[in-house]
């Protein structure tokens, strides 16, 4: 029998099939947003805990009212503050280092105003919001506070480990990246912990108050 070449398969409908699949995937899937601000909630205390006395100068008290206005009370004076000024104000407060004696802050680079916070460990940022405040505003405030902490942590991280050529945020990202090797993770973990102990995030959220 004479050798015959195999008949060619018509590939004209291949595009249609591929389009069909493409449209199916376009409809059923979403591009997921999987990033955000990580926070930890305080555990619910059953028993009454005793009141801790904190000096007024060590508290950076933020209040968001129902009209989404931000009020800042620190060192005995209360004023309205713009969101864009919050980051700088928070950094100045945390970095002030007004403490003397055993409360002295050796890493602070602030103005050492005796009316503002003593050191990183003593400085507390508190946030209270109205129930009618917008979530958007709340996230922005949270973001600015986190940014202030990150800014200081970056500075201290760079100062403490200049050989690494990374900021705190970059190091933290590298640490949580699953592709980083285990030995590098161990090294980073210790360094990150040191900075976290030096500048703890003392950020408390009061329970929201009802607006009348």
């Amino acid at each position: 029998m004479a050798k015959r070449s195999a008949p060619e398969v018509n590939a004209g409908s291949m595009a249609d099939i591929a389009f069909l699949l493409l449209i199916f995937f376009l409809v059923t899937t979403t591009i997921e947003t999987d990033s955000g601000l990580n926070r930890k909630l305080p555990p619910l205390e059953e028993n009454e805990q005793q009141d801790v006395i904190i000096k007024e100068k060590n508290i950076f008290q933020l209040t968001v009212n129902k009209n989404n206005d931000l009020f800042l009370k620190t060192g005995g004076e209360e004023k309205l503050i713009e969101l864009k000024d919050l980051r700088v104000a928070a950094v100045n407060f945390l970095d002030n280092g007004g403490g003397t004696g055993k409360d002295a802050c050796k890493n602070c680079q602030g103005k050492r105003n005796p009316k503002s916070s003593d050191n990183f460990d003593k400085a507390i940022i508190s946030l209270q919001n109205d129930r009618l405040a917008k979530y958007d505003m709340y996230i922005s405030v949270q973001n600015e506070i986190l940014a202030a902490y990150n800014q200081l942590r970056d500075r201290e991280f760079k100062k403490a480990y200049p050989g690494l050529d990374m900021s705190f945020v970059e190091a933290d990202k590298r640490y949580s990246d699953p592709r980083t090797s285990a030995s590098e993770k161990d090294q980073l973990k210790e360094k990150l912990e040191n900075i976290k102990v030096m500048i703890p995030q003392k950020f408390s959220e009061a329970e929201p108050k009802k607006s009348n």
Partner: protein
Amino acid sequence: MSKFKKKKGGDLPAISTASLPDIVFMLLFFFMVATTMRETTLMVENKLPAADQVEKLDKKDLVMYIYAGKPSQRFQSQYGTESKIQLNDKFADVSEIAAFISAERASKREELVPFLTTALKVDKDANMGIVSDIKQELRKVNALKINYTTRKGDAVSGSK
């Protein structure tokens, strides 16, 4: 002059569509890789707020999602426009969060339970009352690791 005479009745050569499937397949693979399957149907409006100090949530299987916001257009006649919580595929009351969390915990291996994170996907126009209620409820069941899911963007100009 006949050299330059236009050919009459000459058919336009057909554009080859042989590479069309390749192009479409390329698009298809892009979408298959870059997107994920939708697990829940959103019944609330979910425009996330913007923030720039974001961290990535890894380990997708260890995340529980709680949605909140105004019911979407097609549910507004039935449920009104007040912000509501959505768990899985239906609207839920604040009191149902505890049951939802324990159901999620039961479905995971026991040693992984402490690493579970709750992602709050809340619409940016929702008010804080509902968010605080959720947070209070999460504290009661000791689900303390939370993540406010946000878009990447400038927080200061994004609000108001």
